[in-house]
Structure formats: C-alpha cells, structure tokens
C-alpha cells in the first residue's frame, strides 16, 4: 500500500500537469474557431446529458490539421525551427565543450567557483538578459560602438533582428545546459586512463580522441538534447531578437494565439510540435538509461 502511494504521487503529478492539459489542448485543436469566450466550439457541460455529449464528439474534426498541411507557412516554420535548433546546438557544443573541458582540467579548488560563474546568470530574469543582449547588439549598441571605436568597421553592423542575433541569444541562453552534463562526464574521467593511453603509445591528441571524447559521449549527447529540445520551441528569443525573416514555430504559435486569437489552429500547431519533439525526447531518455545501465 505504501509502495503504491509512493508511485501514485509522481503518476498523479504527470496526469494532472501533463496528460490533462494535453487532452484539453488536443480537444481545442479539434474544435472550430468561434466568436465566443472561450473562442472555440463546441462546448460541453456536465449537466447536458448523453445526447449532448454525442453531438459534442460529432462536432470535433481534423479540419485544423488539414489547414496546417495546406498552408506552407507552417511547414516552413517547422523546418526553419529545426534548422535553427540544429545549428544552435552545434555552435553551443563547439563553445561549451572547451569550457567544460577547461573546468574539468582546472585545479580542484577552482572548480566550484568556475561552475558558479556558469550558473550565476540564471539568477537573473531570462527576459532581462535578452533585453541586455538587445542593448549590446543593436545598431547603437555596445558592440557596434566598441568596434567603431577600434576602427574595425566603418559603419554599424546590423545584427539585431537577424538570424545571427537569434543564434547568439540561443547559444548564450542554453550554454549551461551544454556545459554541465559534459563537465559531469569529464569530471568522472579517471586521469590514469589518459596516462594508460599515453603509456600504450598514444600522443596527447590521440588520447583525447580515443579516450576523452568517447567517455564524454553521453555527456555530449545529453547536453545536445537539453539544448535542442527547448530551442525548437523557443518563443521569446525569435520574437524579440529575430527579424521579419526569422521563422520559428514558437513565434507562429504565439501569433496564432494572441494576435489571431485562433485557438484551435494554435492548438493544432502545438500538438504537431509536441509530436516532433517526442522523437528526440525518447532518444534522450534512451541515452540516459543506457548510461545508467553502463554504470550499473
């Protein structure tokens, strides 16, 4: 009985906070747009009885999903989001790995401080940090002023409201999610393994590719998923820092909800996004589980 209660808590949590909201969104995505409050039909009340319930289900259809497949805006937004997420993940990995490696190789007494510096920005509001980046990257911003002062450029660069700004902000925002798992993997790496590799005839660089990278693999995979999954659905960064040419599904979703007030289509967009994300999430879970088994 106690075991049952223990398992029941997380399951109840998932049911209340994931499954029920998902079913509500699914239901809205199958509804029709209406000038009402809430802005969709059909509605169903508990008091209406069985007849009304049957009519309610008869009114649900896949019309919004058909619409999504017909208007290429949505498909292009999904593809563009995937592309931006993949590129950002690769850049984050290229920036994050050397940092994680540096921290893992630093003197033991320095590591907590360095890790703290990685985590510290998280103690400020995300929105404020994005606005700070807007201040840095805008035409009259710090970066342009600095480059003009150095004489590297003759006139200000346009960075803000381009895809470049979106990449910069995504890499900046999700960098800790990349660094921390890679650091955790590298930290566990026994130095004697590298010595053994050298002893057996590897140069330092060979030892890095043959020992360090394979043993950091799970950390790298975890870090990539932790960046990739939220980056696909990112809303605030493309809205605030992207330009008119930046097409991301999160932004489309936001506009459907708040500008068009077309909740059913917005819900359909959300459902498709979730289906797209389920694949990497399952892969991520499998990687985690494999790692746990390997450590047995």
């Amino acid at each position, binding site marked *: 009985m106690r075991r049952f209660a223990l398992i029941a808590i997380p399951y109840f949590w998932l049911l209340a906070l994931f499954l029920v909201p998902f079913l509500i969104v699914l239901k809205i995505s199958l509804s029709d747009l209406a000038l009402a409050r809430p802005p969709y039909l059909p509605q169903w009340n508990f008091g209406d009885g069985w007849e009304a319930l049957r009519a309610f289900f008869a009114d649900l259809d896949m019309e919004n999903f058909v619409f999504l497949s017909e208007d290429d805006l949505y498909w292009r937004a999904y593809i563009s989001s995937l592309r931006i997420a993949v590129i950002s993940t690769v850049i984050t990995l290229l920036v994050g790995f050397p940092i994680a490696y540096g921290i893992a190789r630093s003197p033991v007494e320095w590591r907590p401080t360095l890790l703290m510096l990685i985590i510290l920005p998280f103690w400020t509001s995300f929105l404020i940090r994005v606005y700070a980046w807007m201040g840095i990257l805008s035409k009259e911003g710090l970066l342009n002023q600095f480059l003009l002062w150095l004489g590297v450029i003759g006139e200000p660069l346009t960075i803000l409201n381009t895809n470049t700004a979106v990449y910069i902000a995504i890499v900046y925002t999700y960098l800790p999610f990349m660094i921390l798992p890679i650091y955790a993997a590298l930290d566990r790496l026994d130095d004697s393994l590298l*010595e053994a590799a050298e*002893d*057996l*005839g590897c140069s330092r660089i060979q030892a890095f590719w043959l020992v360090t990278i*394979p043993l950091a693999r799970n950390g790298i995979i975890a870090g990539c998923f932790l960046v990739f999954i939220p980056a696909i659905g990112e809303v605030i960064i493309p809205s605030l820092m992207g330009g008119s040419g930046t097409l991301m599904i999160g932004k489309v979703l936001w506009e459907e909800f708040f500008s068009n007030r077309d909740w059913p289509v917005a819900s359909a967009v959300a459902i498709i996004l979730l289906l797209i994300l389920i694949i990497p999430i399952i892969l991520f879970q499998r990687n985690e589980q494999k790692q746990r088994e390997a450590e047995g």
Partner: protein
Amino acid sequence: MNQTAFAPWDDPAAKPLIQFRDVTKRFGTFTAIEGLSLDIFEKEFFALLGPSGCGKTTMMRMLAGFEDVTEGQILLNGQDIAPVPPNKRAVNMMFQSYALFPHLSIWDNIAFGLRRDRMSKDAIAARVEEMLRLTRLEKFARRKPHQISGGQRQRVALARSLAKAPKLLLLDEPLGALDKKLRQDTQFELMDIQETTGTTFVIVTHDQEEAMTVASRVAVMDEGKLMQVATPDQIYEAPNSVYVADFIGDVNIIEGKAAQTGDKVTIAWAEGQPDIQGTTATRTFSPGQTCHFAIRPEKVAISADKPDAPNALQGKVLDIAYLGNISTYHVELPTGAVIKAQTANTRRIARRSFTWEDPVWISFSDTAGVLLEH
C-alpha cells in the same frame, strides 16, 4: 634451470637494463627521491617495497615517463630516457586502478597499444589471442570491463601492458585490489607469466609478503632513500639496519653496549640480566658502542626448564597469540622488556605446554640474531 643461478647483480660483467644514477626528484620544496642510485638487470623481478609516501610510486612514474627527473639520470639499456616521452618508451605500466578503458571490450583494450604501432590486422589479432591465452581470458574477450570480476580485470590490465612486449613492465600495486586468497594465487601467476615472457618486471608494493614471494630482489625504501637492496632471504636473514629488520616480518630488538672479541660480541643490555652472546662476521663494534641485537621470533625457543643454550633468559608468559599454524608467546622479562617467541603448533591446542602467567625460559643460539649499528 636452477633458480640460484640467476644472480646478475653479483656478476660484475653483467650490464644492467636500468640504471638510476644519483636521481633526485623534488615536488616544490618536498624531496620525494634523494640521490638514489640503483641497477636493475634484465629478466629480474624487482620489487620496490616501502610504506606509503616513501617515493616508490614516484620512481615508477619516472620510469614510465609521467614524472621528470629533477637531478641525475635514468638509463635504459645505457640510453638516458629523460628526452623520451611516455608514448615512445619501451616501457609499459600496469596501473593500480588497472585503468581499463570502460568503453572498449576486453579484446579492444588489449589491442589498444598494438593499434598505435600500425601493426597489420592479422598480427594484432594473433597477438591479442596470444595474450588472452596467456592470461586465460579467452572467454571474456567480448565483454566490457564492468562485466567481469576484479581478478579478471587485473589479468586484462596485465595482458594489455604485456601486449606490446615491453622491455620493462612496471606494476603499481598490481594486487592491491584483490582479496587475500586471490592475491596469493595471482602472485604465482605473475611469477609464471614473468618467467614465460622473460620480461623485466618492476613491482611497487607496500605488502612485504607479496614482495618476498614474487621478487628476485627487493629494495626497501624509506623517505626517498634505498635502505637495502638484496634478495628476499638476505633482506629477512641479514637486514642491514633496524628499519629493514623491523619493516620485514616480526622482530625482537634488544639494545645494549657491545664488547667484541674476534667475531664474538657480548652485549650488556640490562643490569642483573646475563649478557647476550652474538656473532658477526661483517661488523666491528668499538667497546661500549651502542648495538642492536635483532632476532626473529621463530628463532627464539621457549621451554619450562633452563635449557643449555648460549643465551637463556627467564620470564613469564604475558600474552599468547594463537594463529592456527603457529603461536606467538609474548614473554615478559624481569626488566619489563617483552620478547616474542614463536612455536609451530604441532600438537592440538588442548595440550599446549604453556599458558598465561607461566614462568618460562626463552633461549636462542649465538648465531640466531643479527647485530646492527643503527
């Protein structure tokens, strides 16, 4: 081959494989190794023995190339190895933690070093199979290191470090992680493998029994210095200092003033007690010089009646340590000194001759002990 014939260290014409020449190693202000000179010969099984922090691991790491020599030289086959990086040395190491690559199978772990040498695939496969046979690991070739037992991992580490047929194999506490029974079996296995392959082994250990069992010669170290380098029997029977006598096995040390005539030495060690009669062939003590008489417990006899022996002292049994095959009696002399005497338990315990508080005589011959200056 007759075991006693192998003694290149006694042959002045023999060329050592490894020579430490006045080697000093400092870490900052701490001196780990101080002016140490040592020759190790081909096909030797050489043990570096000492308490933790005595510098034995540092010596091994200098041989492997993981630590630089601060002063002096280390020669391998007459060549200074200081400029040779670890990956180019004909020296392999078996790590204390084994350092097996967890992401590679046993087979790939053993093949790791061979692949770095750009050997052909067939040659690598043949060599790996040979190593697997040598260490009886054929059945586990496809497993990962975390899927095998500690003893098997130890053998994989050995196979991997032997695969490249190094001139010198370094073993850092190779049996430290094994339980006692397995450790004893593995010691003999190590000796067999060393003999089969003809590789020179240098083993680092803090376990004196292990060093005595496997090694052709043992170097006892303390605080960065060599205290004595000799064969196990010499180390045990003829230690050159109280430190070595005390470090290896159990020993009674009696301190007194020496008076020497020829090779006979009498030691006045306590008032009202008869002087101890000893012999020494190698040392000369000036009259009245402080002298330590070291005698192993198994060379001390215990009896109820006064025996006819050059040295006989009376006391009473203070303690008995029963170890199954032997018993160690702690005999307290009237001076308060406690002497350990060991007897083999050839009889059943119920018929033990002595018990607590019994007055007894302990005795030993004049050649049983060793006389030491310090």
